[in-house]
């Protein structure tokens, strides 16, 4: 590890602290070390990470299932940035804005709700249409005078954030400078184009949250590899063994694992309908990918899941999980216990991982730990993530 302390690393006007250590993460896997400890435990590194990793890239912040009805609005705070997601009554389109009034900076919407009309700031009642246009500046020119010659309404619209919807997930690019979502994620969109079909979520059994005392990167790393299955997920390993898995390696984009032994089997003896027009390889295949930085994805013939990792602090995350089915019939009452069994199965898997993520977080305080070594065979997907992360910082 560098002999300089974290304070010295920042005070030496080095734009990227622990640069030498980060450079080791982009070496070939045989020679590489993982990302250094400070990026898991230090607030200054997290602040830098927010600017470079989260503000400049496409980040998952929420689910469209929370905005089914036209006029629905949901405030989402992600890494301290207040967002406002609206499905407009005017065109049914979902848009994302910064949840702030351009007047005095008041947070506009406090709770999810269904808007009847305009958004009214609770402070001075400036109003905005559901497409973000300013539509009233009451008393701005004095009592009863609602305009002023020096103030242009066009400058008072809500601040829209570049956004994209894919697989029921709302993505944002806060700085607005990232390439279009479809360009950045062309390879995974192509890989899973067969799943570009309607998906259905019941909003109850198929939704759950977990809080984990570990850095967000550890949750990503742990999901990427199958290496730990025999020890951490003995139940899962009993029908989908280590040798049934294959790495998914796409440097610069995403990584994960394939299980070639996916089998849908529930005690209710009911099976969910499969997605339409899948190729035969999906009969026994499941794919588990992380779209960097923070979206965990699962794809099987009969259901999908999305898990958004929200960093809360250097050592804490919230995981929000949604499971989706291929047909609205799967949301009927007669499938309720099967849905519940499926959700519990995944919940058990994600809960089994908590011990590991929290254990690795504690281990990151060991001064002698150099970011760790990678198995060139088993840890390739993890190295893809470290390489992606380190390059983003080094190229910033």
């Amino acid at each position: 590890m560098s002999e300089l302390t974290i304070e010295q690393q920042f005070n030496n006007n080095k734009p990227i602290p622990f640069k030498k250590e980060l450079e080791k993460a982009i070496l070939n896997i045989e020679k590489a070390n993982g990302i250094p400890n400070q990026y898991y435990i230090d607030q200054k590194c997290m602040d830098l990470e927010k600017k470079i990793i989260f503000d400049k890239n496409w980040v998952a912040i929420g689910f469209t299932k929370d905005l089914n009805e036209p006029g629905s609005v949901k405030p989402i705070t992600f890494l301290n940035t207040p967002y406002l997601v609206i499905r407009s009554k005017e065109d049914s389109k979902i848009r994302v804005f910064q949840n702030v009034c351009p007047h005095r900076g008041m947070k506009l919407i406090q709770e999810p709700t269904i808007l009847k009309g305009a958004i009214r700031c609770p402070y001075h009642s400036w109003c905005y249409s559901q497409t973000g246009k300013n539509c009233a500046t009451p008393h701005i020119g004095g009592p009863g005078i609602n305009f002023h010659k020096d103030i242009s309404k066009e400058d008072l619209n809500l601040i829209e954030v570049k956004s994209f919807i894919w697989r029921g997930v709302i993505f944002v690019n806060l700085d607005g400078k990232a390439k279009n979502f479809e360009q950045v994620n062309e390879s995974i969109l192509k890989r899973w184009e067969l799943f570009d079909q309607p998906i259905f979520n019941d909003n109850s059994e198929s939704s759950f949250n977990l809080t984990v005392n570990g850095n967000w990167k550890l949750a990503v790393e742990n999901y990427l590899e199958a290496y730990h299955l025999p020890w951490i997920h003995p139940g899962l390993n009993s029908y989908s063994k280590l040798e049934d898995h294959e790495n998914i390696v796409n440097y610069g984009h995403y990584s994960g694992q394939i299980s070639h032994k996916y089998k849908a089997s529930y005690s209710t003896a009911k099976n969910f309908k499969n997605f339409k027009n899948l190729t035969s390889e999906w009969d026994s295949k499941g794919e588990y990918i992380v779209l960097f930085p923070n979206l965990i994805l699962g794809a099987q013939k009969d259901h999908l899941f999305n898990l958004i990792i929200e960093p809360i602090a250097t050592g804490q995350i919230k995981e929000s999980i949604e499971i989706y089915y291929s047909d609205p019939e799967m949301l009927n009452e007669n499938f309720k216990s099967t849905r519940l069994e499926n959700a519990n199965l995944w919940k058990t898997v994600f809960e089994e991982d908590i011990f590991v993520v929290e254990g690795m977080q504690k281990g990151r305080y060991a001064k002698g730990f150099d970011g760790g070594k990678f198995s060139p065979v088993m840890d390739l997907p993890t190295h893809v993530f470290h390489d992606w992360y380190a390059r983003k910082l080094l190229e910033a």
Partner: protein
Amino acid sequence: MDDISKLDTDITEAFQKKQMKKVCSLYFEAANYFENKSDIEAACFFYTQALVMALEENHDLKEKIIHKLEKYGRNQDTTLN
């Protein structure tokens, strides 16, 4: 209690009960009251109050209020969408 004091009380009560559609109608009523007394300043104040509630509630009075405020030169380029 005169008419305007009663309106004042009703507006406060409706506000407290979060009956915003009613708040809008009451502000509109207050504006009409002052307009009938040729107190245009006070009328425009209340029309403005009614307007923001009408926009939020998508109230039928919306267009009428905008018309009044534009008539008295108090609103310009009103955008509803």
